[in-house]
């Protein structure tokens, strides 16, 4: 287990905070760490900055994520990693599609050539749409409080996707599945950050597997080609105990 000192905390939305800390380790966009809150729990969190100064951007869902959002400047952050196969990087125009806190792992991919579809339930929850420099931003909200009312597909349909060298997608599985279905018939390059329960982060416990691939090791980034033919994606997954449940998105 490693640890570092928190050097800054930024409030991004009412429920999301970004915690900055120094860590000289080389890491790439799309990789994640297992962040440990002693006495509370350990959870997978994507790196939202991958330079010498690293950051994680966390939404409070439960005990561990909540405790991380309560870290303050000067406190210690415990973690291990970096883990996972990163996004591939390309030169030229890219499109980022982020749902909810999914924008966290896309942030290190932002260049002056990046356009973005940023979606959330409400305007207040839109994450990092202010960080897009140079490119266009399409905001989408469930309730219409900002931008397009609807889901990311409503924005995707209005964009000429062929011009992008890569489309990167991160968000809840239901969103990934809908976007996958929309993009599947088109000849475009796309990569998806998948999310499953992760207990070990190092490819042994099987809690994160999809079609026999361990998201923590073989992913969590997969290309659209790799996702074709995955029977479990968007359809079924295992709970904490290993019981199979059906999603059928």
């Amino acid at each position, binding site marked *: *287990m490693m*640890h570092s000192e928190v050097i800054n905390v930024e409030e991004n939305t009412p429920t999301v905070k970004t915690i900055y800390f120094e860590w000289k380790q080389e890491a790439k966009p799309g990789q994640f760490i*297992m962040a*440990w809150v*002693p*006495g509370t*729990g*350990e*959870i997978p969190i994507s790196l939202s900055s991958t330079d010498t100064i690293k950051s994680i951007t966390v939404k409070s869902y439960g005990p*561990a994520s909540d405790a991380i959002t309560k870290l303050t400047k000067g406190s*210690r952050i*415990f973690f*291990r990693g970096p883990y996972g*196969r990163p996004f591939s990087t390309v030169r030229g125009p890219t499109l980022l599609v982020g749902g909810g806190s999914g924008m966290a792992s896309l942030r290190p991919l932002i260049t002056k050539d990046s356009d973005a579809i940023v979606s959330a339930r409400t305007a207040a929850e839109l994450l990092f749409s202010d960080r897009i420099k140079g490119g266009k931003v399409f905001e989408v909200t469930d309730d219409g409080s900002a931008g397009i009312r609807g889901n990311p597909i409503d924005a995707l349909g209005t964009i000429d996707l062929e011009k992008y060298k890569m489309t990167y997608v991160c968000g809840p599985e239901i969103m990934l599945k809908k976007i996958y279905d929309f993009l599947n018939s088109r000849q475009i390059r796309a990569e998806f950050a998948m999310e499953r329960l992760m*207990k*070990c*982060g*190092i*490819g*042994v*416990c*099987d*809690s994160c*597997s*999809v*079609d*026999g*691939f*361990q998201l923590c*090791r*073989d992913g969590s980034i997969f290309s659209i*080609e*790799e996702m074709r033919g995955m*029977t*479990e994606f968007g359809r079924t997954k*295992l*709970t*904490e*105990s*290993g*019981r*199979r449940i059906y999603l059928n998105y």
Partner: protein
Amino acid sequence: MFAYFIWTAPNPFITSDDLLKKDTMNRLNTQISGIRLDNPFILASGILDENGYTMKRVLDEGAAAVVTKSIGISERSGYRTPVVVEIDGRNMINAIGLANPGIDNFGEEMKIARESMKPVIGSVFGSTAEEFALLSRKMEEYGASAIELNLSCPHVKGFGQEVGSDPDLVESIVGEVKRSVKIPVFAKLSPNISDILEIAKAAEKADAYVLINTVKAMAIDIYARMPVLSNSYGGLSGPCIKPVGIRYVYEVKRETGKEIIGVGGIRTGEDALEYIMAGASCVEVGTAVHSDGRDIFKQLSLETGKIMKAEKIESIREIIGAAIRK
């Protein structure tokens, strides 16, 4: 590189790997309690064996058989995270806490795993002979090729090692399970007891012993001033426990002569042959999946085949227990 995993043929072990000549294949095949194995390498219980699709992939990628994660009567979520601690990249301490969906929910995973057409061994845990018998009958119904009795998990109260260190209870569990199923029954024993021979004797009705489970251990983070695992205690696995495993396999083989499945710290062909010469008929591999990836099974077959050829060993059978001094 990744595309390679995705597009490998269903049985790449035989069809697409021309490095492995038929010659090596013949050397490597073996058996345990009448179950035929293409090679001596079995996936150990608790590693990549909760999801049927994962077990199927591990089998398709070269393991001769898999042992399922240990399944109990009712659903358990296991311990809070952290449930593993990495030590030096190759060893680890785990306290998953016997997370499992309960036997009634495990049939579908068995069905998916068995599409590989290779043996799937059902691992079960309980606290009484009746529970073990019921679980074993269910596993047999689901198509398991054998039962592995977890009498040895070191970190859950009322199960595993706590059950497995009481000779009378062990004797009644093994007896009851043997009466309940037709498939072979393996007893997985713990290294964390004072006299393994006493327990082995109590479990002598089993068709084979599985040695060893993890060694009870702990890691403390000095900066947090507390144990890392949420359960504080866990089980140590990986190359650092290999000498302990070798000793137990040797001792139990010498004293009982019974078939043994060796497990604990195997990650090279040499490790595997060491276990076999100590008395194992085949071996299970767990933690090496962490250090080397799922590819470890193919690597192990390749390495073991090469050493056997160089050492003029024609078959696994020929060297089982070869190192034992009477």
